C-alpha cells in the first residue's frame, strides 16, 4: 500500500463523522479509510443507512452543511487537506477539483435556469472567462456528454429534459473544470435500467478519457461489478471488505458481502435469492462486537459478540473485517457468481 500512496488522487484515513440527534450522538461513519487513483473507479457499496452518502459528503468537506461534524481522520486530495480548508477555500476546490452528481438528476438542476447557463456557471466560477466563452465551453461539454443538438438544447430549461438527459447535464457540470475527483452518489438509481446503462457507459468512458478518479456510491452490486475497478463494502459505518472487483465478487471473504451477493439476482441463474436475515441496526443502537454478528450465519457466541474485528488489508489493498474469513470463503462453494 505504502509505495502507491503518492499516486493516489484521494486518500481518506480513519474518517469518522458524528451527528447529534435528539441529544444522542450517533456515528454514521466510523473509521473509514479508502483511496482512489487517477482514472480509477471505486464502488462504495452498502445498504441504506450504511453511511455511504455521509462518507461522500465528508470527502467534500461539506459535513457541516448537513449538521454533522468530522470527529477524526483525514481527507487528502492530491496533497490538499480537504478537512482543514476554510469554507472560502473549500468552495474554490468544489467544482474545480471535485465534481459531484446526485441521485435525482431532475431535482439537481435549477428549474429556473437555462441548461447552458448552469453548466457555464461552474466554468465562470473557477475560470476567468467571458460569458460568451463560458457558454461556448458549456455547449462543448454538453456535446461531450452526447446531448443531441447541444447549441440548441443549451437554451432550454430543465423541465424539457428527461432524467437520463438531465444526468448527462449533471455529468457535464461535474466534469466541466476537469476535476481530479468525481463523486457520483447513486447516479443511476432514479433512472430506467436501459438509460442507466447508457449513463454509466458514458460516465466510465469520460472518466477514463479525462483520467478522473471516481467514487461511485451505490447499493446496486450489479452496477458496481460492471463498472468499478475496486469495490469497498460498507456496513454500519465501517468498511467490512475491500478489494478488486473480481476478488470481492468471486471470492468474498466477509459474510456480509457473501450475503449481498446471494441477494443479488443473476441473469440466467435459477437459484433462489437468499435475503440477509434481519435489518441494518440503527446507528444509535449498534450491537457489541462485530456489527454484523446478529445477522451472521457464522457468528460464534462468545467471540463475535465480544470482539470488534479490525480491517486487515494486504499489500494490494484487499482485505476484510471478520474474525474468521476462511470459513466465509468455504461457504461460497457451489454458488456461482458469473
Amino acid at each position, binding site marked *: 500500500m505504502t509505495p502507491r500512496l503518492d499516486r493516489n488522487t484521494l486518500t481518506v484515513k480513519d474518517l469518522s463523522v458524528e451527528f447529534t440527534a435528539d441529544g444522542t450522538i450517533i456515528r454514521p461513519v466510523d473509521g473509514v479509510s479508502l483511496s482512489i487513483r487517477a482514472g480509477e473507479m471505486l464502488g462504495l457499496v452498502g445498504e441504506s443507512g450504511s453511511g455511504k452518502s455521509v462518507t461522500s459528503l465528508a470527502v*467534500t468537506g*461539506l459535513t457541516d*452543511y448537513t449538521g454533522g461534524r468530522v470527529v477524526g481522520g483525514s481527507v487528502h486530495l492530491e496533497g490538499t487537506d480537504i478537512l482543514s480548508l476554510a469554507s*472560502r477555500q473549500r*468552495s*474554490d*476546490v*468544489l*467544482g*474545480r477539483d*471535485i*465534481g*459531484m452528481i*446526485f441521485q*435525482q438528476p431532475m*431535482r*439537481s*438542476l*435549477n*428549474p*429556473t*435556469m437555462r441548461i447552458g447557463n448552469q453548466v457555464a*456557471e*461552474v466554468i465562470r*466560477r*473557477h475560470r476567468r472567462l467571458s460569458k460568451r466563452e463560458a457558454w461556448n465551453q458549456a455547449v462543448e461539454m454538453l456535446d461531450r456528454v452526447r446531448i*443531441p*443538438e447541444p447549441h*440548441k*438544447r443549451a*437554451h*432550454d*430549461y430543465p423541465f*424539457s429534459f428527461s432524467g437520463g438527459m438531465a444526468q448527462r447535464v*449533471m455529468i457535464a*457540470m461535474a466534469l466541466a473544470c476537469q476535476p481530479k475527483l468525481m463523486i457520483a452518489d447513486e447516479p443511476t438509481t432514479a433512472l430506467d435500467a436501459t438509460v442507466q446503462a447508457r449513463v454509466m457507459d458514458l460516465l466510465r468512458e469520460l472518466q477514463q478519457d479525462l483520467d478522473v478518479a471516481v467514487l461511485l456510491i451505490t447499493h446496486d452490486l450489479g452496477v458496481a461489478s460492471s463498472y468499478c475497478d475496486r469495490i469497498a463494502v460498507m456496513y454500519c459505518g465501517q468498511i467490512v471488505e475491500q478489494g478488486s472487483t473480481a476478488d470481492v465478487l468471486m471470492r468474498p471473504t466477509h459474510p456480509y458481502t457473501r450475503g449481498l451477493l446471494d441477494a443479488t439476482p443473476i441473469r440466467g441463474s435459477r437459484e433462489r435469492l437468499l435475503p440477509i436475515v434481519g435489518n441494518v441496526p440503527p446507528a444509535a443502537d449498534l450491537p457489541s462486537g462485530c456489527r454484523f454478528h446478529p445477522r451472521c450465519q457464522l457468528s460464534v457466541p462468545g467471540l463475535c459478540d465480544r470482539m470488534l474485528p479490525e480491517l486487515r488489508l494486504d499489500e494490494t489493498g484487499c482485505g476484510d473485517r471478520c474474525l474468521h474469513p476462511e470459513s466465509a470463503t468455504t461457504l461460497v462453494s457451489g454458488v456461482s457468481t458469473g
Partner: protein
Amino acid sequence: MLQRKDAVVSAPRKVRGESLASKMFSDLRSDTLSFVAFVFVSAVILIAVFGPLPVSTDPNQLNLRHALARPSSEFWLGTDDLGRDQFSRLISATRVTLLAAAEAVAVSLVIGLPLGLVAGYFGGKIDSVLSRLNDALMSVPALILAIAVVAVVGPGLTTSMFAIGVVFSPSIFRLVRGSTMAVRSETYVEAAVAIGARSPRIMFVHVLRNIFPPVLVQISLLIGIAMIAEANLSFLGLGVVPPEASWGSMLRTAFDTFYAAPFLMFAPGLAIGLTVLAFSQLGDGLGGALTGKKASR
C-alpha cells in the same frame, strides 16, 4: 435519411424555450376574472404613465365660477369646490397614488427581501435575531406609525409611505424566509454548493429565482393594501400636499362637499375600490397560475 432524422429530433421542440413568464401568462389567460383584473391593472398603470399627456386641462387650474359643477361635456366628472376639473385631477392622481403604493412596496422589498433570504438561508442565530426583530416590527400598527412620522417630519406622501413600507416589510420577510427555507433543502441548491458557488450567489440567484413567484403574488396584494393606506393618510390630510391630488385626497374633498355635490365621491371611490380589487384578484390569479390551481373564490 438525414431529413427523416432531423424531423424526429425536432419534434419535441415546440415545448422548448418557453419561459416561465410566458407560461404564467398563458395560465392567467385561462382564468377570466384574473385576466380582466390583469387588463384593468395594466390600464391603470398606462394611465399613470401616459395619462396626463392627452389631458389638456390643468388639474390644478382654479375656476371658481364653475365650482361644484355637475358632470357635463365640458367637465366630464364635474368640478370640485374650487372649480378644478375632476376628470383631469383623477387622471393626474392616478400617478400620485400608484407611485405612493409602489414606494411603500419597494421599501418593504428592499428591507424584507435580503433579510428574509439571509435568515432563511443561514438559519441558526442570525435567523432567531432577525425573526425576533421582525415580530417586534409586526406589532407596530402601520397607520399609527405613519401618523407619528408625519407628526415629526411634517406632512408629505413620500415620508408617510416610507413609514408604511417599513411596517409592511415583515410580510415580505416572513414569506421570503419561509420559501427560502423550503428551497434551501432542494438538491439543486446542494448542487450549487457542490460546484463551489458562494453564499451570496446561491441566495440571490439560485434561491431568489425559485421563490420569486410567491413574492410576486405578495407584491400584487401589498400594492392594494398600500393604496388603501395612502387613501387613509391623504383622507386625513397627512398624505399628499395640496394642490397635488391623490385618490384619497380627492375623496376627502368629496366628503367635505358631500351635501352640495354628492357625485364627486364616485370617481375617486370607484377608482380606489376597483384598483385595489383588481390588484388583489391579480395576486390570487397569479398564485393560482403558479400552483396550478384555480384561484379560490
